[in-house]
């Protein structure tokens, strides 16, 4: 079994949200996609961004827990906020009929979001 050439190994990310947004809007303008499709596509882009930020912030919070720079109240407040955000994201995904795979961003050299 053989691997593909090292595009990921070359420091180039496949993230192109701007390009994806342009394609989506153009598809809506040309009538190639219905307004519902465009709406769902936009929701996927926005939720993907929120998911990336949530993931990064959670990791930072866990690092700070490990380093002992958060007290018990701060840990509880942060955890509750992330938990609520996670639940809200799940609701929004259900509303727009999106799955985790729809938000599974390819971060190039960093791998996939999940």
């Amino acid at each position, binding site marked *: 079994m053989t691997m593909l*050439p090292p*595009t990921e*190994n070359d*420091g180039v990310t496949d993230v192109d949200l701007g390009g994806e947004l342009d394609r989506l809007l153009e598809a809506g303008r040309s009538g190639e996609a219905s307004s519902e499709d465009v709406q769902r596509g936009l929701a996927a882009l926005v939720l993907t961004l929120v998911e990336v930020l949530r993931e990064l912030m959670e990791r930072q919070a866990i690092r700070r*827990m490990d380093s002992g720079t958060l007290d*018990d109240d701060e840990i*509880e407040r942060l955890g*509750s906020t*992330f*938990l609520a955000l996670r639940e809200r994201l799940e609701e929004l995904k259900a509303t727009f009929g999106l799955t985790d795979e729809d938000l599974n961003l390819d971060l190039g050299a960093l791998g996939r979001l999940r």
Partner: protein
Amino acid sequence: MIHLYALGCAPLGAGSRGIDASPVTTIATGGIHAVVSHHDEAVRPSTEAALQHVATIEAVAERIDVAPVRFGRGHVDAAALRTKLDASLPELRDLLGRVAGHVEFVVRSSGVPVEDPRPTEVGPRIAAMGAGRAYLEGRRASALAAADERRRIQDRLVESTGPLDEHAVATHDTIGPHGPERCFLVRRDAARSFTSRARLLVGTDGSMVIGGPWPPFSFAPLPVPAEVAR
């Protein structure tokens, strides 16, 4: 704008083409020959451009010994590039001495360890502290479990590929975009025999995949930053 592909040990004659079929030339400083192409604007990062970048390095490496440079965003002009290179000449010469004339192979596990995005269940003592803390503790437990799994796969990879070590000049263990990887630096003239040995080894173990030969990026952490075009 100058796009940098590699650092060479000798000047490159005419005839090579790079990204968007642009002519590839060399810019010399301190005995090092930077392999470059000129563009009106910085080359936009894309999978296609990255593949052309790698293909150009591979083609150039057939003509002169080079150390590859990862895809960057361009240098403003020859003077700016020379300034960057001159600031690190001893390190760059050392690097060329180590990797020029070599290729890289990578073996990785075909099973990708993925962190479970759901928080792991935590014990009643932590859960009693509050839902917020229990959530973060659960996320930490998921991350630690994924890290343990990566380490286990890495250890197995090192053990399984042990027979290849003596046929490589150097090895490098890393966590790539698809999980743990073991990279092998191999002399270009030994690449064919290494391929045979690696395929024989990997062929008996369905849990591994092999990549390469390609430019030895993993062994060439250049001290020259990819200049960000302004």
